[in-house]
């Protein structure tokens, strides 16, 4: 988009006049992984009325003196081609996995590795939530990390965090990692 875009955006940034640091976070993962549930948990909203996402949701969450703008995009197969429209200027990727859905570990791994290769996500830190740990059939985070070959990611910061979006357990730990990481990165 050329020069004007850069100028325009920086103008706009300054016009906002906020001293608060804004962080753009994109929340991705297969359908039914628990992205919207996680988003609502982060925003301290009710998680009992969530339906599969056809479009996308945005919530702004204040954390560690920063404003986190979290974008949750639907994960159904037909929506995944649209993911890449939301990656520009992303500061951090949160990837959510249903730890109890072993049948789809391979599918979710493929989607993640495609995201990692996206130009717009180059070097962008990634937090993986191994969600639904409250279910008895959930695989432990370490096993999932191994299955995803996370240890081969050398071009970025990454972290895997076991959690339950429903109970909220582990979610805050993940957010702490994010905030520490962003602060390090942006300073």
């Amino acid at each position, binding site marked *: 988009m050329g020069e004007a*875009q850069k100028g*325009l*955006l920086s103008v706009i940034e300054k*016009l*906002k006049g906020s001293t608060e640091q804004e962080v753009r976070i994109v929340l991705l993962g297969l359908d039914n992984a628990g992205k919207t549930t996680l988003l609502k948990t982060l925003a301290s909203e009710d998680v009992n009325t969530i339906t599969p996402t056809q479009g*996308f949701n945005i919530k702004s969450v204040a954390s560690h003196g920063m404003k986190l703008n979290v974008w949750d995009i639907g994960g159904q197969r037909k*929506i995944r081609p649209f993911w890449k429209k939301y990656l520009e200027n992303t500061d951090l990727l949160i990837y959510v996995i249903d730890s109890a859905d072993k049948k789809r570990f391979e599918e979710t791994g493929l989607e993640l590795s495609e995201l990692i290769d996206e130009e717009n996500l180059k070097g962008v830190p990634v937090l993986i939530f191994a969600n639904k740990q409250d279910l008895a059939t959930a695989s432990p985070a370490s096993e999932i990390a191994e299955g995803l070959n996370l240890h081969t990611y050398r071009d970025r910061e990454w972290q895997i965090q076991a959690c339950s979006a429903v109970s909220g357990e582990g979610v805050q730990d993940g957010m702490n990692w994010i905030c520490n990481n962003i602060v390090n990165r942006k300073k």
Partner: protein
Amino acid sequence: MAEDDSEWIIESIVGYLGSPEWVIPVTDFMENKCTVFDDEDENKLSYTDIHQQYKKLVEKLLENYMQEVGINEQQFLDACTSPFAKSKSLQAVFQPVLATDDFQMFRSLMVQKNTELQLQALRVIKEQNGALPECLTDGVDVMTELQQQEMKILEDVLKKSKEEYDEEMSRRLLIEKQMGSTSSSSSDKPNKGDEARSAALTSSKQSNTSKPTLGSSVQPNLLPAVRAPTKSSESSDANRHQAEEQSSSTEAAAEAYLEEAHREAGFSKPYTELSPSQQEQLQQRAAYLRQQRDKLHALKREKQKSRQAAEPEEPSHTPPLEPATNLEISAEEKKKLQKRKHLADKLKEEVVKK
């Protein structure tokens, strides 16, 4: 850069944001695209494309503007970051610019615009009938469902009268062009009346494609973008620009709504799938609406005339569609209308609050 420079540049930018060169294309865009924006919590994927298009439009406009005025990006930036630019009143003026980078703000502007147009549609119906037609008030108890149905019917009606409208537009365009330029009156298309309309029927496509240029071609030298700096009246100046922006957008809104509703109606249930009685109702309503539209155009033209005659004194606070009388409305109908209006107001309020 000297502070004085910043000041006149900011003045100029604000002037530009209130000028037809900016207001017309931006308002046009919003009115044409706002109909898919509802106030559901979840966003539709299509919003993103529309937001991208909006970004491009604003970028192009600002680029043109900077070139025209002869300032570079650095100057633009310096001016925009000067303390003057950060005053409360100016922040509001800059909202449509900020919306390029702020999806949530963009979304709320679009939802707000959509609500405005819905209200206008209600007013059109109300004015033409003295009250809302039966089919819009009877039979359905749930308000939201009622509103939806009403919008759908209205859209169908408007779709039905698309030809007439296009024809009207192209006729107007033709007349305006003839008046604006010195072109010899190649009037194979006559002056007024019904013959002229049917004569122009074939040119509906032309009217669609030439509409976006309406602003620049019809109003080539209104409001120069660069204005002399006036140190003492900063905020009142800004307010004036806002008022100007509002009034011109209100006027354009009524018209563009009609146009857009046709386009949108293309996606809704086709006219032919309606029951015969519904079709008949729609046809009746189409006739009403046509009358309404003619009245509207007459009103608008008059307004433009008086505006040109007395531009500074008339910031035109009165919306062009304000019903002249509502004497024939029964108490019950009135109550229904109020209920509906209240709902729309609430919706609007929520949107504005966001």
